[in-house]
């Protein structure tokens, strides 16, 4: 019986002077659908690298990954990242307005292809219908859906057409989270998403993740805050081993 998500033999070797430096070697990790797992450990131990390796974003990481019993190789690189989505620590908002920023993922070919095949394949529940707005035909969630998602994250004060560079650091982090959540990934890899937020807003982010997990998204969180009681499991990465 396969776990919903599995990572086996995860290894990261960084090039170093006079050879290689092994950050971690032969790690095993698995989780069920809708679980929240916190990944903790000292700084610089490779938590972010592990998440990036799981999303196949780190060129130094190798391992055997599978989702819903299917090997990562069977998905293709971009489809894998659509389904197993890494949310970086520093929010990077690309687009003129908040709405543009949030609709960015739907401008990529991988989701347009998914849109074309969504009726045939259940793997792409994240694909959306075309939305017509005042500015013409755009891909992605409509304004109401974005509004609702932002409100849930405690961003009622962020207008959709506000210039994205006007946002504060905490607001940027939440808009970034909102963007990834709306793509409905099967596995969310959240890298210190709540680190720049006050307790109140961190609680809102946690609540949003709880709802996402209830809807079936499995979430791995790298956190430095005190445990918030949301995680089904807390895993420690230390000296290259998962405990």
């Amino acid at each position: 019986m396969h776990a919903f998500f599995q990572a086996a033999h995860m290894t990261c070797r960084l090039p170093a002077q006079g050879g290689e430096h092994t950050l971690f070697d032969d790690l095993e990790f698995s989780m069920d659908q809708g679980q929240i797992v916190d990944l903790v450990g000292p700084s610089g131990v490779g938590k972010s690298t592990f998440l990036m390796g799981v999303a196949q974003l780190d060129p130094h990481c190798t391992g055997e990954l599978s989702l819903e019993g299917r090997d990562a190789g069977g998905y293709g690189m971009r489809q894998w990242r659509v389904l197993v989505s890494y949310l970086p620590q520093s929010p990077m908002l690309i687009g003129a307005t908040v709405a543009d920023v949030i609709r960015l993922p739907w401008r990529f070919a991988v989701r347009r292809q998914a849109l074309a095949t969504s009726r045939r394949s259940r793997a792409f529940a994240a694909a959306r219908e075309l939305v017509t707005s005042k500015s013409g035909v755009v891909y992605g969630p409509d304004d109401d859906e974005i509004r609702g998602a932002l409100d849930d994250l405690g961003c009622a004060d962020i207008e959709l057409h506000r210039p994205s560079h006007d946002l504060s650091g905490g607001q940027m982090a939440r808009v970034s989270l909102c963007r990834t959540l709306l793509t409905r990934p099967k596995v969310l890899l959240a890298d210190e998403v709540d680190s720049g937020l006050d307790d109140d807003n961190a609680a809102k982010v946690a609540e949003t993740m709880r709802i996402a997990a209830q809807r079936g998204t499995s979430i791995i969180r790298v956190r430095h805050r005190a445990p918030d009681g949301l995680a089904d499991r807390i895993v420690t990465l230390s000296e290259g081993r998962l405990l």
Partner: protein
Amino acid sequence: MSSGSYDIDLLGLAVALCMAAGAALFSGLLKLGVGKSLLIASCRSLLQLLAMGLVIQFIIKSNNPWLVMALAVVMLCAAVQITLARAHGIPKGLAFPVFLTLAVTMLFMVALVGELIIRPKPWYAPQLLLPLIGMMLGNCVSAIAVAMSRFYESMEERRDEIGTMLALGASPWECSRTSIVSSMRLGLLPTVASLASSGIVTIPGMMAGQVIAGGDPLVAAKYQFVVFAAIAALTLLADAIIMTRIYRTCFTDRDQYRPWISRTSSKA
């Protein structure tokens, strides 16, 4: 043709060289730090130009298509070397894409400007093709060098942005597009500027040369326009080819951004 032309004698060359030497001396006094290289570059350019003049003279006399092609290939190889030396912060191993780009552009130049617009007889007329190839290569070398430097610089600046885009399912092409557009624009700027200012602010080199050598100014103007238009189009083509050849070097074959790309520390 030589009826209206004025040759430059040795004294003339010496005076020109003295002007460069004077400028070098002046810059030495001002401690600009370019005096020595200015002098060396002046002497080098005099020798190179005279040598090129002799070679072209020989090839025009011999009127042999193989010799024309051989010189074109030599110019092409030199252009590749100069492009790689002039571009800053680019990874190693780009000689082949640059060669391919310049070769394709050169073939287009010969086919379109030579055989379609001017239609010389014989088709390989050295006095036409060699200067055309030289002008085209000169422009493409600077455009490609600027575009490549800017591309790698821009990709490095956008590293976090690219990481985010990849994480959201973007392809390497989608990640690179912003940098490709800005690099191509920068590579094309001088060409567009020279198109717009020609005839009003400047009499471009080729037209000036033809007029000084006693050619009909109207014919010279037509030639100049054809060359400018062709260079504008071919510079864009060259930029487009080199970008499609090199953007992938920023990514691994698993579509991961490659931050440790080895850079050459070349100087201009």
